[in-house]
């Protein structure tokens, strides 16, 4: 199966509120709240790290979840956010990914 690379879109507004991330699409004003696990994936979406590596190296270790289960959840999350233009997805590394909002 091809690797999946994810990058945050720049056409969004986002801010960490406590342990959750508020995200709003500038295109259609759709509003999302990402829980702690989804926020961690979001923050790691640098366009260069494969999703499988984010799941194995970050999600499974930080949240003590089964890898297969975490991968399925991550795939669903990525699909949903990419449909709203909030995440960009490619089978190649995404070079011009957005500026990092992760620490904010």
């Amino acid at each position: 199966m091809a690797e999946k690379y994810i990058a945050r879109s720049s056409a969004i507004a986002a801010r960490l509120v406590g342990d959750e991330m508020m995200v709003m699409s500038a295109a259609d004003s759709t509003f999302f709240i990402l829980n702690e696990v989804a926020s961690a994936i979001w923050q790691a979406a640098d366009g260069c790290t494969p999703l499988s590596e984010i799941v194995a190296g970050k999600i499974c270790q930080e949240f003590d979840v089964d890898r297969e289960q975490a991968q399925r959840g991550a795939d669903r999350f990525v699909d949903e956010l990419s449909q709203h233009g909030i995440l960009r997805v490619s089978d190649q590394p995404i070079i011009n990914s957005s500026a990092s909002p992760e620490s904010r």
Partner: protein
Amino acid sequence: MSLLAEMNQKALNLGLPLSVHLDITYRCNERCAHCYLDHDDHGEMTTAEIVDVLTQLASAGVFFLSLSGGEVLMRRDFFEIVEQARQLLFNVKVKTNGVMIRENEAARLRQLGVEQIQISVYSHRPEVHDAITKLPGSLKRTIQAIRFLKSQGLKVTIANVLMAGNFSDQAGVMTLAGKLGVAYTLDPTITPRMDGDTSILSLRIPGSELKQVFHSQELVGNVEEFCAPPPAPGEDIMEGFPCSAGHTACYISPYGDVFPCVQFPLPSGNVRRQKFLDIWRHSPQLQEVRSIRARDLPTCSTCAHVGTCTRCPGLAYMEGNMRGPSTADCEKSFQRTGIPSANMLTWTRAGSAGPLIQIQSLALASSAAFEGR
């Protein structure tokens, strides 16, 4: 509870400033009759200072950023400021009169991902709108700007401030908004000038017209529900606070002064001398605002409207006491429900009216209610 309400509650619990209104200039190309600002430049923040403030706001947790003025496009660095704000991933709303927005400006706002543009329109008739703005041709240019913005797919809202001089044009502005395919919002609030001058309050619409607004299904939806008598307040109401000012929102002037709200001129610090987060967390003024609950309001806590009133603590502050009533909101509650506020009953007993309110129609309309008491 909506997702947004949920996040507001979370921000409140965490003490985060979710929304900031930043005026980047008080300079303006219009001279609106009702404007509360002094349009001279007394030393606006530089681009670098504003970028620094934006960076601090992002770190502090601000999500919603309103950029306003004055007229924002009077600053040559306006787009640089918006670009920085968007790079910091704020949800950006711009308030403007639109006069300086042409195709290029509209395209740039779209490209930068501005979420919403709010544009002031006072009438659908140039002779009325331009007389209020004191800028000939301003309505024509503003409408052109709305078309440019719409053609870019941007979300535009027409803000219609209602005054004695344009009240009869309210329906015309609403129709215009419909024709242009943009949202419409109206505001009957006229506030004193920032220097304390209250002369512009004479522009407020009288109570009888306020009543028409509140009883218009087109404007408020379900009139019966909107104008229903207030329910008896429970303990949760008495422990509540009036609005987000100082709790999850604040205002920053072009000179770096921080206030609880644009309509609440209580100086609480200055970002040129202190870090924003220091002011937000430790300003005695903001802490005092946050400490006030409905039960602490000497007059309003005894009022039937305490749970439903739109009481603005900033307007109350401008009347002399942030714990006191805001007479403009007493008037609104009365015109909405027909039930006089506790504050109004105080005036009646004292035989005098509050200083900031036009009571001619109020006295006539409410005499029956008062006689029954």
